């Protein structure tokens, strides 16, 4: 069946299978930042934004994208024009293998969209469901706090 949705600002009209996951659809459409980790919604590597809310795309049905606005990491920034959150992750040294990074950044994006001045504790609460097995969480929290500071200074586009 054919559905319509907006992916990173671009209209899409893909054919989807009724039991297909949003993760499968997005990767099929070339969004390779969307990672499959656990496949059960527990690790957070597949996180994307649906109408501004972070959701687990591995357990979300692709058909549910109908009429929605979906943002993946590709929609935030590029190598040549990174989003301030991506720059903050680099500045804070919050990336090692990078597998969890797209999910971490999108969860942080949702948090800062709603609470631009979080405490480190609020950042930890926001990322509690996103697992990182190599960087450790301290630098990730530092990166989100740095991005929040930049946002308050008006450095976000």
């Amino acid at each position, binding site marked *: 069946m054919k559905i319509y949705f907006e992916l990173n600002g671009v209209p899409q009209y893909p054919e989807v299978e*009724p*039991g297909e996951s949003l993760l499968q659809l997005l990767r099929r459409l070339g969004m390779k930042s969307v990672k499959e980790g656990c496949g059960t*919604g527990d690790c957070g590597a597949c996180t994307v934004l649906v109408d501004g809310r*972070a959701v*687990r795309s591995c357990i979300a*049905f692709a*058909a549910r994208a109908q009429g929605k606005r979906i943002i993946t990491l590709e929609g935030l920034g590029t190598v040549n024009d990174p989003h301030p959150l991506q720059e903050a992750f680099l500045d804070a040294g919050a990336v090692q293998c990078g597998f969890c990074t797209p999910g971490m950044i999108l969860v942080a994006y949702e948090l800062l969209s709603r609470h631009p001045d979080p405490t480190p504790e609020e950042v930890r609460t926001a990322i*509690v469901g996103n697992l990182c097995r190599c960087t450790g969480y301290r630098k990730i929290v530092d990166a989100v706090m740095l991005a929040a500071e930049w946002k308050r200074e008006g450095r976000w586009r």
Partner: protein
Amino acid sequence: MRLTGVRRFHWARDVEEALSLLDAYHGRGALLAGGVDLGRSARTDLEGLIDIMGIGLSYVREEDGRLRIGTTTTLTEILEHPAARRYLHGALVEVLCRVAVPPLRNMATLGGAVVSAHPWADIPTALVALGAEARWEGEREEHALVEELYRQPFRAVFRRAVLTEIALPPWNGAFAFEKLSRSAGDIALLNAACGVGIQDGKIAWARVAVGATPARAERLTWLEEALQGEAPSDTLWRQVQEEVERRAKVGDDRRASAAWRRSVAGVVVRRAVARAAERAAR
């Protein structure tokens, strides 16, 4: 995604259409709300999914002191709704911010939590303690207290019905929720919820539920009766802890042993009761 047998996906427009589609599949169709359970499911018998997020059941309303919540309302929407945040001095916030993690709360619905009714789930424990009422539509409109619903073969009921609303009654008192889990966002190894009303320095009423024992939430009516008329004190809380430890119905599962659960049940219930009483006395 493991639902390999699914051939059709429907976006139902109202309760009637959802019921009609469900009926047409003769047990091989499923209602899809937040999808947290179905998205993880490996069921091979399902042929059709019926999306019910657009059938008008996403709402939070205050009416006659009751808080009425449509069953497709997500946990995040409840957490952010002013009326839900106000209810019983933040009772729902205390529970829901400890359920799962933010991206799952963005997906999961209140109705899904009630119908799935995982024995380790926190929401059924809180709803049983709060005296919540469930409403559903099948062949006719029906309603029952959530604790009574769980004594029925409710899974069979919701193979032919749509859970439409959870209503929370007004209480003159305070509430507290306790949960033991290995880490934040993890599922409960034991949970307890307690509502208490204080009058003239004594406990006028108490409602206590314990869940993840590892069975689903049950009220401790013997404790509720014992607490009535007692004045809150450290001695009373010590007695609560000892009695619950002695009488709690606990068991083993792969997450914790019965012996461990027994050793912590008294503490968890004591904390919930004492904290609710302290808040009610303010």
